[in-house]
């Protein structure tokens, strides 16, 4: 134990020393940044958060690449179809990545590495431990820190010669025009429907090409919108999907490498557009199915002449964009906060703490867990009976026999045995209780907030996911 104590104090001292060194370096950086601000640059190249194109000093060869640049990007320069011209264009370009998550992570890393002159990133979220399996730009040290800060630090550590701009805010109609207008092209790496409509509309209004990617489960999709007369998001999807058709990674899961692949392809399309090399994926869509190892590229419709935003007679102005309510249009929130239903009267619900009290008192009851079975396999409460909501109707007999068994064990009569229903967050449990009431189990109650509230209020060691 003594040596452990010594180890701990030695480590603490080392942490203190390193923290002091870190503070010193940060101070020196800010002094240098202040000095840089006072030096006038041609075209106002670096000024605060604005992201105008980087200037490249003229060199003897006439292409403007410095010796360091030639060495760093030599493998690009050696590509006959990319070469000096492609690299110079990249260095002068500016790209905005909206969302520093599963798609944005690899996209940002590649864009920084390959020398895009200015990269901006927008996100209001903080890094969470359950992001790290796919959002490979973030590291454990940044858990709890803003994603843009973490992403910017990673990009700077790969390439200190480019400009990285942090937009630590949620993109919304009041800031989108200002932010997007500073960049040549936009990458949509978001995770929700209203953001996708908003970003596409904003790109149309500002005349910016949009590289759009999406991933969920084991599938991914990719296309380029609003590029040289090609379609916009609304040409393809004039009407938003029903909210029940919009799954999220936090509910449906996602294999980490799948958004990784789509994010890399987004970086590739962005690089092609920025360097004017190759054929961008406009008017076509790439569909990726990881499970069957299949990539399909399909031809999609062109610009719709009657499109409300980019069509011939469209009157969608900047003002209209700012006034447009994307959450109302898509009936889903811009942020990905989980839904909180309130379907039941208060006397048909109990809190997780109340349930715990009844459990401790030995109350005769049956606990039904209505999550899908693969959720139940992750973690469950002891003695709970897993009947997924989708099969509740056909498996009612299992609840009846569980009630009978409990009565025999506890010696209570039928009406004295309660039914409690639990799920992950407390939405499906309410739907299940509604059904149970309808078929005569009128005393069934749901546990408010589900297993998440159990973990929060009763057992902090209970795993959450």
């Amino acid at each position: 134990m003594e040596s452990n104590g010594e180890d701990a104090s030695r480590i603490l001292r080392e942490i203190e020393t390193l923290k002091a060194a870190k503070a010193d370096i940060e101070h020196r950086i800010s002094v240098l940044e202040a000095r840089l601000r006072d030096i006038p640059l041609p075209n106002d190249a670096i000024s605060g958060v604005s992201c105008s194109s980087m200037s490249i000093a003229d060199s003897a060869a006439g292409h403007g690449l410095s010796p360091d640049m030639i060495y760093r990007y030599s493998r690009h320069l050696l590509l006959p179809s990319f070469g000096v011209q492609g690299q110079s264009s990249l260095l002068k370009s500016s790209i905005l990545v909206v969302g520093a998550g599963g798609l944005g992570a690899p996209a940002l890393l590649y864009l920084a590495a390959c020398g895009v002159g200015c990269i901006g990133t927008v996100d209001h979220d903080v890094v969470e431990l359950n992001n790290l399996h796919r959002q490979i730009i973030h590291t454990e040290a940044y858990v709890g820190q803003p994603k843009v800060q973490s992403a910017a630090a990673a990009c700077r550590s790969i390439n200190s010669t480019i400009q990285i701009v942090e937009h630590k805010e949620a993109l919304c109609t009041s800031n989108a025009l200002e932010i997007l207008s500073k960049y040549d092209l936009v990458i949509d790496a978001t995770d929700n429907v209203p953001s996708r409509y908003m970003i596409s509309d904003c790109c149309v209004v500002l005349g910016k090409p949009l590289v759009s990617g999406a991933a969920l489960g084991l599938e991914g999709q990719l296309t380029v919108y609003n590029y040289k007369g090609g379609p916009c998001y609304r040409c393809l999807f004039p009407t938003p999907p029903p909210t029940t058709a919009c799954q999220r990674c936090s509910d449906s899961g996602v294999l980490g490498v799948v958004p990784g692949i789509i994010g890399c392809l987004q970086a590739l399309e962005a690089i092609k557009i920025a360097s004017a090399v190759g054929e961008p994926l406009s008017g076509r869509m790439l569909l990726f199915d990881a499970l069957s190892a299949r990539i399909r590229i399909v031809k999609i419709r062109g610009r719709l002449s009657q499109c409300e935003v980019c069509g011939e007679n469209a009157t969608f102005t900047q003002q209209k964009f700012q006034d447009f309510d994307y959450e109302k249009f898509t009936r889903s929130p811009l942020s990905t906060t989980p839904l909180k239903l309130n379907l039941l009267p208060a006397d048909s619900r109990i809190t997780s703490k109340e349930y715990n009290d009844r459990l401790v008192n030995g109350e005769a009851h049956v606990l039904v867990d209505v999550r899908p079975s693969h959720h139940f396999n992750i973690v469950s409460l002891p003695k709970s009976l897993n009947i997924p909501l989708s099969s509740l109707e056909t498996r009612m007999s299992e609840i009846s026999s569980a009630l009978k068994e409990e009565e025999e064990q506890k010696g209570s009569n039928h009406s004295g045995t309660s039914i409690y229903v639990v799920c992950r967050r407390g939405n499906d449990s309410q739907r299940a209780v509604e059904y149970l009431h309808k078929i005569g189990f009128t005393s069934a109650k749901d546990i408010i907030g589900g297993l998440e509230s159990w973990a929060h209020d009763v057992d902090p060691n209970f795993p959450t996911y």
Partner: protein
Amino acid sequence: MQLTLEFGGGLELLCESVKIHSVNVDPQVGEEKLTMKDLLSWVRANLIKERPEMFMKGDSVRPGVLVLVNDCDWELSGQLDTTLEEKDVIVFISTLHGG
């Protein structure tokens, strides 16, 4: 008429999680041609096992579903009026929004 139908982007969940279906669909009695409109009602009656509203709206697909006939958006071939031929591959894919 032999056709290959593929479901993706989550739509496969409506047909018992099977993505690829090799099917035989014939034109209705008295009709010479099989159109996408005919195929949609056949799919709804024979393949969709749950929540049909997640696949169709009215007599077409619901918003957010792309239909591809031989790797080509059905908007380019006449949507519901697209005439199908032997060995055609029809893909129904729900757009993804996650990231």
